[in-house]
């Protein structure tokens, strides 16, 4: 580790791309893929990942520009720097793909995910779950006498942390949307 404690693979602290292209260390990258919203475009992107043996940690997709027929696919993937470069090049050559952005190296970005947690229980556990939800700024969107459904938005790490805390308190079900991300600034 360097004195500055800059994580290997990170370039957000430097004007230069600090990544070693020959590194064998797998990195996690968040890619934003802007595509023409035509039938089968998601299958093309997913098929590319499975066909070439790339990983998908998370994937979200929705139309973002109705008149322009554009959708935005946010995909979180893992691989060595050369694999990540290859993934971007492969995505870029798909005919309906307009742009590919690597939010992990192109500068600072915000990442958010939405999650719903169903926590079942009574008594002390129920009260503790509600208290923790408040600390995490989760909202109650459904409640019965035996259960809550919490809604929470945050980074994947925050959602992981909340899920860990809920587990002993009666976590019954989790639904997560996957990461949506945008570059900071203009």
């Amino acid at each position: 580790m360097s004195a500055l404690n800059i994580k290997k693979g990170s370039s957000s602290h430097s004007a230069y791309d600090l990544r070693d292209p020959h590194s064998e260390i797998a990195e996690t990258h968040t890619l934003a893929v802007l595509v023409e919203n035509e039938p089968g475009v998601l299958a093309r992107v997913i098929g590319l990942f499975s066909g070439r043996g790339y990983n998908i940690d998370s994937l979200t997709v929705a139309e973002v520009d109705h008149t322009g027929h554009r959708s935005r696919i946010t995909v979180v993937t893992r691989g060595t720097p050369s694999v990540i470069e290859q993934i971007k090049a492969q995505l870029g050559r798909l005919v309906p793909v307009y742009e590919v952005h690597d939010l992990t190296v192109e500068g600072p970005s915000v990442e958010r995910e939405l999650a719903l947690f169903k926590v079942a229980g009574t008594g002390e556990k129920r009260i503790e779950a509600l208290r923790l939800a408040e600390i995490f700024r989760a909202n109650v969107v459904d409640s019965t006498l035996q259960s809550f459904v919490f809604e929470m938005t945050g980074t994947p790490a925050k959602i992981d942390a909340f899920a860990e805390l809920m587990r002993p308190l009666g976590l019954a079900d989790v639904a997560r949307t996957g990461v949506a991300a945008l570059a900071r600034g203009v």
Partner: protein
Amino acid sequence: MSRQMTGARMVVQALKDQGVDVVFGYPGGAVLPIYDEIFQQNDIRHILVRHEQGAVHMAEGYARSTGKPGVALVTSGPGATNAVTGLTDALMDSIPIVVLTGQVPTFMIGTDGFQEADTVGITRPCTKHNWLVKDTETLAQTLHQAFHVATKGRPGPVLIDIPKDVQFATGTYQGPREAKQSRYQPKVKGDIDAITKLVEMMEKAERPVFYTGGGVINSGPAASQLLRELADATGIPVTSTLMGLGAYPASGKNWIGMLGMHGLYEANLAMHGCDLMINLGARFDDRITGRLADFSPRSKKAHVDIDPSSINKVIHVDVPIVGDVGHVLEDLLKVWKARGRKVNKEGLAKWWGLIDQWKAKNCLSYKPSQKTIKPQYALERLEALTRGRDRYITTEVGQHQMWAAQFLHFDAPNRWMTSGGLGTMGYGLPASIGVQIAHPDALVINVAGEASWLMNMQEMGTAMQFRAPVKQFILNNERLGMVRQWQQLLHGERYSSSWSESLPDFVKLAEAFGAKGAKVENPKDMDDAIMAMIEYDGPYILDVMVEKHENCFPMIPSGKPHNEMLLGDASTEGAIQSGGAVLV
């Protein structure tokens, strides 16, 4: 002019407007409206194949030999699934073809209808792009877009799936000029700074080599011309992949032969020993590189490719240039001339001295025989007797293919059609027909092995029906020769299922189709047999009975670097470690 017409008529109109003169196809229920339109016009010729795979390989042969996109038309379900091998072949070798498939009517899609298949789903990974057209109003636009995508950038196969009701319905036709401009516009000009950097490296290099590939041929005749000019002016040696043969002439003074697994000794050692490798339109395929860790260890590498995903995919390069080979070569020449046409003369003279020593090894030499026809001898004679003619060669896949690449010489691009990336046995016969349809007066020869040839032999019927006088030059060793060679070298000489039993009598087979056939067994009859084949005015099968256990050398075994090449049977013992057997 926008006009109202049925979808089926639009298909034919769009093909005409795209300059298509021939379609290879096979009718079926879901394409009947299009066949009805084809029947009622005379501008587009339809070649009825005997199997849809044949149609796609014919379209490939047509495309590779003309530089124009090839077109195939097949029905839904089995028609489409039979086209899959050809589509994959065209994708691997970057061949522009447009495949039109019929589909069940839109209202039946998803009901498991008769001859329904998820064609766009099945062909998504084996096309450059594909479309399912659900509305006749968008059909014309899609057809023009398909030709654009197939031919622009790195060429490749595209497919349009057209449901039967879309063919019957009426819509507005737009010509190619009225159609919406495609957003797909790949970059063709290379970065001039990178090109200048490469020129600087070329000026200083002591041991440079041009490593050229199919991209030079795909770029068009101008690229081949520029390559010749650049190589001849600089004196830099040129080697080529299997796909690039003919881009630089085999008779050219800088030619050092094909490289790769069965490439020439001098070409592979030049790749291993060079200090500057200039990759023009090739993709560092595993048949070329051998063991990656030891691939050309002391060289700086430049890579010109129109496909950004080819750059740094397997080999990290020092100077990447994304662009069309022709455009980049033009700029490269311009910059090199403007900077005073410098080369490292002293270095190059020493380099050529070394290459000439390697050439003296005469790596293609083989043990001649008075009794049996050696496959190499058959090809040497074929080369000698067809040289100077208007000749096109196709091949099947296997030993004969590698021998053909070694022993036949190509002085012009688009004269050599072979399945390189996918290695499709059964490619050569239909491809030869596609070539012959495009060049009716040329001499078209398919160099084949008997096993590969049988895979699409039904297309002899197509050759007969359309009077395509293709010559089938079958090197018959009654073995799956390349499989047998690998079993000998890598699997303890256990010849599992690698011999051809119950082979047909190829002469009678030719006659059964109405063609002519002959068999040759004695080396002294070889020349007469070849001449009889060339002079016959019609499809012809020459069954050349060759040495059964001849191995193809040189050979870089899987998992070995370029400088550990096997040159002949004597060098094979213990040369291949068990680790190599897991590689293909």
